[in-house]
């Protein structure tokens, strides 16, 4: 009891005895998580305001007579006539290494029952993107572990690559595989003790998804040991629109901390279609004028200011990077809808996933013709370039020929060979979920297809044969794999080792 009294006495002595000045207003109306407030004459745009009971809000609409505030938290406790106070602070979130392995909401409150966050620094949610002087062009690869992406649509650190497709085509899988691959690479790099090794930390922003899916993704990351290198920002479907609107900016702020401190980070926004819908909801309640598909006029700026925050900084600015993988869900494959076209034009390329390919069993269901990486080739590892340089073209030719071949049975030998080869390339790119393949094994596999070692294997057996070769090669030629990883190119010596390994493996078949 005495300790409690001592505690109170200590608090009394700490209390400030000066007058506290605050700018206030009164709630005029509350609806759907948005409060209209009379007063607040000195409030700033995007400033945090305080409702009774410790509920926080953000001033989004500064009008002549009223201020429109979105309420972050339980709006049912806010009543008409309640006093609202300005705080003088912009919305910020805890950042730093202490957040790794944690799950937080849009305002940085932990939601994983692991106690308070170990963080002393805060970053504002809204920040101006780095300028042109601070930036540097993309020159370092970011391996996704997905063979078709790394070989044909390479991604560089600091790039923004859109993952787009209908529901259930594997968009989240590509993102999660990439996060798992970063964790795998980080572990290998840390074990190697290489002082130049730069780990990539991941931030996975979940917007408007089902809680069951969120739990499944977190579990998958934990199982694969990727959670220790990952921060999850969650605003599931059950969360209010305000939290869903803020979640990507919270993730970007966390990612920016890594970038500004000379580290590399990857951020996945899953997905920005739901983000745009949440913003539309807020805008309509705030009575902002609506435009195409009832989205407000600044929906382009909503995503451009978010994605522009991903960058590769110059060595003078610390040399960090923030790579973004935004996800967009299309309706019936319509890439010409409002939000998809907006985000396509903002990003540096897109990975387009197709339902037809998915149903044909081609997984990941990447449409190579519509997918592109505008800047990633500058960052692609030379070894991958050596073995995958012509594959995209061959695959495109195969698709054209395959469509043509449907109408006739008599094909010349050259066309038949091209079709056979194309079918094998399609097969070799098939990959199970949550199983990213390291770059060196991708190179070894693609070297085999480039040099015809899979030509006499039936197309249906290519997937299992390639997996068998990878196992054979990784158990016997670990030194060669390390060499490919370190040198980043296929020298004559490595080529000779690969040739010998393929010949021996084929004998063992």
């Amino acid at each position, binding site marked *: 009891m005495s300790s409690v009294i001592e505690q109170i006495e200590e*608090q009394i002595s700490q209390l400030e005895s000066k007058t*506290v000045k605050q700018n206030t*207003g009164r709630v005029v109306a509350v609806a759907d998580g948005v409060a209209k407030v009379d*007063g607040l*004459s*000195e409030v700033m745009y995007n400033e945090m305001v305080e409702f009774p009971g410790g509920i926080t809000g953000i001033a989004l609409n500064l009008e002549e007579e009223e201020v429109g505030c979105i309420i972050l938290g339980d709006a049912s406790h806010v009543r008409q006539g309640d006093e609202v106070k300005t705080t003088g602070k912009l919305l910020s979130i805890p950042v730093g290494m202490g957040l790794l392995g944690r799950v937080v909401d849009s305002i940085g409150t932990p939601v994983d029952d692991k106690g308070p966050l170990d963080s002393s620094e805060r970053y504002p949610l809204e920040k101006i993107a780095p300028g042109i002087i601070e930036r540097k062009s993309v020159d370092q690869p970011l391996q996704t572990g997905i063979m078709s992406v790394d070989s044909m649509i390479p991604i560089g650190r600091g790039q923004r690559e859109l993952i787009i497709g209908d529901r259930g085509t594997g968009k989240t899988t590509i993102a999660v595989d990439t996060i798992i691959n970063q964790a795998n690479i980080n572990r290998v790099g840390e074990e190697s003790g290489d002082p130049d090794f730069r780990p990539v930390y991941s931030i996975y922003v979940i917007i408007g998804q089902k809680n069951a899916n969120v739990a499944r993704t977190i579990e998958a990351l934990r199982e694969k040991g990727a959670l220790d290198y990952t921060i999850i920002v969650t605003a599931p479907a059950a969360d209010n629109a305000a939290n869903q609107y803020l979640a990507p900016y919270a993730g970007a702020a966390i990612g920016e901390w890594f970038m500004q401190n000379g580290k590399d980070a990857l951020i996945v926004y899953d997905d920005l279609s739901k983000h745009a819908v949440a913003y539309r909801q807020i805008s309509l309640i705030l009575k902002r004028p609506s435009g195409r598909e009832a989205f407000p006029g600044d929906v382009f700026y909503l995503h451009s200011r978010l994605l522009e925050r991903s960058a590769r900084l110059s060595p003078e600015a610390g040399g960090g990077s923030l790579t973004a993988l935004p996800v967009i869900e299309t309706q019936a494959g319509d890439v010409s809808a409002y939000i998809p076209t907006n985000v396509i034009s903002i990003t540096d390329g897109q990975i387009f996933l197709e339902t037809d390919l998915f149903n044909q069993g081609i997984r990941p269901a990447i449409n190579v013709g519509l997918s592109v990486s505008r800047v990633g080739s500058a960052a692609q590892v030379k070894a991958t370039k050596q073995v995958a340089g012509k594959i995209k073209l061959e695959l495109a030719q195969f698709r054209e020929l395959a469509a043509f071949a449907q109408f006739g049975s008599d094909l010349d030998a050259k066309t038949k060979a091209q079709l056979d080869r194309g079918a094998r390339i399609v097969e070799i790119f098939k990959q199970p979920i949550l199983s990213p393949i390291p770059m060196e094994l991708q190179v070894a596999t693609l070297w085999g297809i480039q040099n015809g070692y899979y030509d006499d294997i039936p197309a249906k057996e290519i997937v299992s044969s390639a997996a068998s070769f990878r196992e054979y090669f990784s158990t016997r030629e670990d030194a060669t794999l390390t060499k490919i990883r370190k040198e980043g190119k296929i020298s004559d010596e490595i080529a000779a080792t690969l040739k010998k390994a393929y010949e021996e493996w084929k004998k063992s078949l």
Partner: protein
Amino acid sequence: MAQSIRSKKFARQLVAMSIEEDRVVPERVSAVLQALDKKPPREYKAILRAYRNYLKVEVAKREAVVEHAGPLEESAQKQLAAFFNDTYGRTITIVPKENKELLAGFHARVGCDTYEYSARQQIEELARKVASQTI
């Protein structure tokens, strides 16, 4: 929408007519109301409502409602008035109002700004801090 903008603009002009030497003059307000009553404009009710709201804001900006627990001495009122005049650069009238719930000290409101110097607020603050530490 356009009409409501017009009525707001008109109401603002009426407010400007009601102010003299940086204070709302009751006689002028009565004159404005009489003139409106004689020849009611379109959207009369909307204009009157907007006029009332704007006038409320103008009055609140020039008034400091000082809630106090104990007696508020004349000298203290003068000190407060001088402080508010300096802070806002206009003449602020002190409107004292007794509120025993404050326990001690005062709580003042000038327009949207509040000044808190009451024992009740300090105790509430203390209770919040102790509660957060106990949790």
